[in-house]
């Protein structure tokens, strides 16, 4: 009652609300981590052809969008754009 031990009372509803959002987003996305990893690899391969990127800084985020849709947002830090010539060289 007096929060003697610093226990946080009176806000479990907001914790519940946040956990609900996360779990529902994950449920709806229904993307297995295996598929997500494969997708990341493919995306990186494509980006690598055109850009010099920081692979370790890649972030993959599943978001809730309007009307029960799921958004997948991928962010990759770009260090440098490869020169057109070098792109062609690789082909």
């Amino acid at each position, binding site marked *: 009652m007096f929060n003697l031990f610093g226990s946080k009372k009176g806000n479990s*509803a907001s914790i519940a609300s946040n956990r609900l959002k996360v779990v529902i987003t994950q449920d709806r996305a229904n993307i297995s981590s295996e598929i997500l990893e494969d997708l990341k690899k493919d995306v990186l391969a494509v980006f690598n052809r055109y850009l010099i990127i920081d692979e370790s800084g890649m972030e993959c985020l599943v978001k809730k969008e309007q009307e029960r849709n799921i958004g997948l947002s991928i962010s990759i830090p770009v260090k440098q754009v490869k020169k057109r010539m070098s792109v062609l060289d690789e082909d």
Partner: protein
Amino acid sequence: MGVVYAVTSGKGGVGKTTTVANLSTGLAMLGYSVAVVDGDIGLRNLDLVMGLENRIVYDIVDVVEGRATLKQALIKDKKLKSKLQLLPASQTKDKTAVSPENMAKLALELKDQFDFVFLDSPAGIEQGFRNAIAGADEILIVTNPELSAIRDADRIVGLLDSYGKKAPKLIINRIRTDMVRRGEMIQVEEIIDALEIELSGIIPDDEAVIVSTNRGEAVIREEGSKAAKAYSNIVRRLVGEEVPLMELDEKNSFVEKLFRLFKK
């Protein structure tokens, strides 16, 4: 031609059967003819909640397998001048004894004779659930403010969408106003935001529900109880009335009453 409602939830124990008993009783009280079907084969309960458990002769499986006619199997609720009739589930048969096609055919027959038909779905997303939605024109999802129940409700919404069913509506059961006020229970708006479906109504947690169920009566007949008011609101919405959402946050402590007095 009547309308067939399936009442489902995903998670068990959230109040599907109680909801079916109350909405159907409420509609019968208004003079509509209503049939209720217990879709929980092997675990029948609707008969008990409605106080009709001693009058079962035939059940849904008997009808589907041709041992009884629908008319023979339907139990008339005499408290409601037979406006309300129950088709009980079988207690002994396997849940695969009725197929979605059987249920759809049954629902069609029933809505030919009744203004409203309610199919009480079992918990889960297996055959019993698929049976219930196979015959339904409208779907009501029951949940309560617990995370697990809300999550399961969302699974149901997703499944219904993938089956190409009309968008369901939501009933949120067992809301504890005191806990919501203290910030210890998730709010109605947040549930709706998360599930992104239309709200059909909210039911406060009310002891009267248990007391009525003990007696085999629907709480909606217990005029004056909060739950009765809440169920009546949903019933009125089902028949097309515009009813504002129930004000659950009644200030009921003495201090709060006093406070309101001063505010006037």
